[in-house]
């Protein structure tokens, strides 16, 4: 008999089960998959942002050594449908056709125009050079405001407009009315630069056909094997039950692998045509063009307040760059953000409008926080500006306006019901860790001395909506799918356990955390649990992993399924012990009869006796396995306070992060060390948006930052040590009390850093620095502040 677990697993900093493979190189990345007869697919991409394809000839490529086939868009068009957009946010949204490979017109630099299939990857890459294409350039569409002009060139000429949609939300009182009674109205424009996701594993797909039965196995570096399977069936017409999608080890996603990509459809189509296994792996530079980008917004934000600092209303006008096509959830990203601009603050009126705009650039979609970092940035930047305007400390202004602990649950002006939170506690803890007053004193001293290196302090308080979830809310938002999640628990005859989850991890540690959850409910050892995921045959139901939903929804499903197993086992145990179910206690995996502890059965014994099924209760099926699909009735709302101190060298413009402190409330924690790691990674990304990263296009629409050598991905020397801590107010929407953590660091950190930079330079007349706040941008902001000072002198 196995020893029963006594110490609770949930809450322990368990080193991960996942690591053994990863630290020894015994990995199963998609590109590692090699099968007999494998062909390598390479894609020729448009070198222009916008052009008509006048002529394309792949015949010369077919002559090259090692080449097996080559196809144009026209060759593949039959039987290959449009790539899906699952979030048509308005009824009258413009939904252009999105062919996986261009047929007559290219709409961004990187749009696929031809594919070559060869016996090895070098031969396939070589043969691309032999494809002949004649283009007639068309005007690029790059500026979001100019794109909306009457006579603007069109990205999709058949649609007659570059305006994809207009999505409004107005709640509370009329904004115009509260604006009238405001003492102070501030208006600002913030720019969200485009970011390139850069998951360390490039995207890859391998398709292996079983010609005789018409079945296909699609291995993909994806976050969404279940959704991908459905969508590939729709796009290719291959029946869903003939498709098996496997997400093997996946090397990061950050939203960029929450997608149904043209390459996945192309690899499947080519494998089907040739009856041979096909692999495509992107190079990093190819990925920069072909993997969706994040952010890309112009934010006009206006805030109205009383002289005392009470917020009255908020107005947001957003222009969101869709890029050339709508990908899986492209239009919905700014809409997720719409609910987050009011953040943790109380106010009387909220007025939001987002206009989605087509441009001739790589499509945008979900990326690290997806809409919420952008919202948090704008509100937290303008709160600092308001504090300056009112001569209040930025933290005091926040205190005046935030929802107080005793007011939860609280329905925000945007209509979300925040179930739990404690902004005071998180902020007080962060301030103490940071040494706020001491740093303010040092700052004043440096300013007095006119030090060339200025100190700046930035704060950011945030909340976010995690755990997508409530399916009926998603329906109201016109999101095509539900938000439920599935889990099943298989108690094996030997007493070991398989947890089958519908979530599909790519670094988050689901195997470890789900094992901890199941171990506690079932009372079995952590080591005895395996977690099955990422294969639509082995784990047939699921809505996959994105938006910090996995633990909150998927982890909750594991909890519920395990509870069901215990209840089934209780019936068997009661029968075997000849006792009433109500007289059985279940502790640490043991059923015992109240008052006579020697009458006992372990859950493992029950599993075996159920398997043998020699003596089961009448009418009971011989299984204690259970499945649960959960659809929570609310989102979850992590929150926290991030504080950043920067030193800005006013002579060089260089910013150095002096200290970074964050206190996050992600509800109850399953594995503290995993939570800490998630926060670190998120904060790193948020700092990177503030200081380093930007996808830069030239006037022709070419991606100038087109390789890792041109796009600054920060390394260990570019990032500081982080001080992280937590407060804990459990979520009420799931039995774990967890809120989700994957995005919090990214959401909170960008405004903390930029607020700190502006705070450092404000005595020198600077009120804004555009992201990323590179030395050059800082230096230019200082120069223009100086020259406007001189002009007014």
């Amino acid at each position: 008999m196995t020893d029963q677990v006594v110490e609770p697993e949930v809450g322990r900093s368990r080193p991960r089960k996942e690591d053994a493979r990863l630290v020894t190189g015994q990995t199963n990345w998609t590109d590692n998959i090699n099968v007999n007869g494998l062909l390598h697919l390479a894609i020729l991409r448009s070198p222009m942002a916008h052009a008509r394809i006048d002529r394309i000839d792949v015949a010369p490529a077919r002559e090259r050594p090692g080449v097996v086939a080559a196809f144009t868009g026209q060759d593949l068009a039959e039987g290959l449908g449009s790539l899906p957009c699952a979030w048509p946010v308005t009824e009258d949204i413009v939904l252009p056709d999105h062919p996986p490979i261009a047929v007559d017109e290219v709409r961004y630099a990187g749009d696929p125009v031809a594919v070559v299939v060869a016996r090895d990857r070098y031969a396939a890459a070589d043969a691309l050079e032999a494809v002949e294409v004649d283009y007639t350039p068309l005007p690029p569409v790059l500026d979001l405001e100019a794109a909306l002009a009457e006579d603007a060139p069109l990205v999709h000429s058949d649609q007659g407009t570059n305006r994809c949609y207009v999505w409004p939300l107005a709640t509370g009182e009329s904004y115009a009315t509260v604006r009238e009674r405001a003492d102070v109205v501030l208006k600002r424009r913030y720019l969200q630069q485009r970011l390139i996701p850069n998951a360390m594993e490039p995207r890859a797909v391998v398709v292996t056909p079983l010609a005789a039965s018409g079945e296909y196995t699609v291995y993909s570096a994806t976050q969404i094997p279940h959704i991908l399977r459905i969508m590939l069936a729709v796009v290719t017409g291959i029946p869903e039950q003939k498709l098996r999608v496997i997400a093997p080890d996946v090397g990061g996603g950050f939203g960029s692998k929450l997608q149904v990509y043209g390459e996945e459809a192309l690899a499947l189509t080519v494998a089907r045509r040739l009856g041979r296994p096909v692999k495509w792996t992107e190079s990093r530079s190819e990925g920069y063009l072909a993997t969706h980008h994040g952010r890309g917004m112009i934010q006009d934000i206006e805030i109205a307040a009383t002289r005392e600092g009470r917020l009255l209303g908020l107005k947001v006008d957003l222009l969101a760059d869709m890029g050339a096509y709508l990908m899986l959830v492209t239009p919905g990203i700014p809409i997720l953000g719409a609910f987050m601009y009011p953040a943790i603050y109380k106010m009387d009126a909220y007025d939001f409008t987002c206009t989605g705009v087509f441009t001739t650039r790589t499509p945008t979609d979900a990326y690290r926080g997806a809409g919420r970092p952008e919202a948090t940035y704008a509100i937290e930047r303008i709160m600092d500006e308001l504090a300056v305007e009112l001569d209040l400390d930025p933290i005091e202004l926040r205190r005046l306006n935030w929802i107080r602990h005793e007011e939860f649950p609280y329905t925000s002006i945007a209509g979300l019901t925040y179930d739990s939170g404690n902004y005071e506690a998180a902020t007080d803890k962060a301030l103490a860790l940071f040494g706020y007053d001491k740093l303010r004193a040092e700052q004043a001293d440096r300013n007095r001395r006119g030090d060339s290196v200025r100190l700046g302090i930035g704060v950011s308080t945030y909340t976010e909506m995690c755990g997508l979830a409530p399916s009926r809310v998603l329906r109201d938002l016109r999101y095509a799918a539900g938000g439920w999640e599935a889990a099943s628990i298989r108690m094996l005859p030997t007493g070991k356990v398989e947890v089958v989850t519908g979530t599909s991890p790519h670094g988050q540690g689901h195997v470890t955390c789900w094992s901890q959850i199941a171990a506690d409910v079932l009372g079995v050892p952590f080591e005895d649990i395996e977690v099955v995921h990422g294969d639509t045959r082995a784990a047939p139901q699921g809505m996959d992993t994105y938006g910090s939903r996995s633990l909150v929804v998927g982890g909750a499903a594991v909890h519920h399924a395990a509870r069901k197993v215990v209840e089934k086992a209780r019936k068997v145990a009661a029968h075997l012990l000849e006792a009433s179910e109500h007289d059985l206690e279940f502790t640490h995996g043991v059923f015992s009869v109240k008052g006579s502890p020697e009458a006992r059965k372990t859950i493992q014994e029950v599993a075996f006796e159920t398997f043998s099924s020699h003596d089961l209760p009448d009418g009971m099926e011989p299984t204690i396995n259970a499945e649960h699909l959960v659809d929570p009735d609310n989102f979850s709302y992590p929150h926290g306070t991030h504080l950043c101190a920067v030193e800005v060298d006013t002579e060089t413009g260089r910013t150095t992060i002096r200290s970074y402190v964050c206190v996050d409330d992600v509800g109850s924690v399953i594995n503290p060390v995993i939570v800490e790691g998630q926060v670190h990674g998120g904060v790193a990304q948020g700092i990177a948006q503030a200081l380093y990263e930007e996808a830069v296009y030239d006037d022709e629409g070419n991606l100038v930052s087109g390789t890792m050598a041109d796009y600054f991905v920060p390394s260990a020397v570019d990032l500081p040590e982080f001080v992280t801590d937590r407060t804990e107010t459990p979520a009420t929407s799931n039995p774990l009390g967890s809120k989700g953590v994957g995005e919090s660091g990214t959401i909170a950190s960008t405004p903390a850093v930029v607020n700190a930079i502006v705070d450092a330079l404000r005595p020198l007349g600077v009120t804004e620095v555009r992201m990323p706040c590179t030395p050059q941008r800082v230096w230019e902001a200082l120069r223009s502040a100086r020259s406007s000072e001189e002009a007014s002198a």
Partner: protein
Amino acid sequence: MTRISVKVDGTTYEDEVEPRLLLVHYLRDHLGLTGTPIGCDTSNCGACTVDLDGETVKSCSVLAVQADGSEVTTIQGLAHDGEWHALQKAFHERHALQCGYCTPGMIMAARDLLRENPAPGPQEVREALEGNLCRCTGYQNIVRAVLAASGQEVSS
């Protein structure tokens, strides 16, 4: 085609390869040693870092023919008698990896650092790993793991 002889993780391989074949593709596609992944095509990310005759190299910037007569150690050759290398243990114990894609390169680069500087400071670790990019961890736990593997006291 060129004939090469390379000892990789203790086994000697004789092969005919194209002169342009990169070492990383030789390891992955020809030898099936897929523990060394590829993260970029500009030698920026460091995911493919291996040891070549005692020198740490990015195997995407070395030709297979240049490795002729050499000894290569990859992440798959680090464990001995089933016992993980101190860095492998430390990365696991300190949660210094999430998706794990950069991990082989990180460990190989950190191993090189510890050979040259057995007791580095945190800043020295950061500088030594400048050529290895990670998108998940924010590097903090990686730095802690390398310090821990060096036998130094590390705060949690």
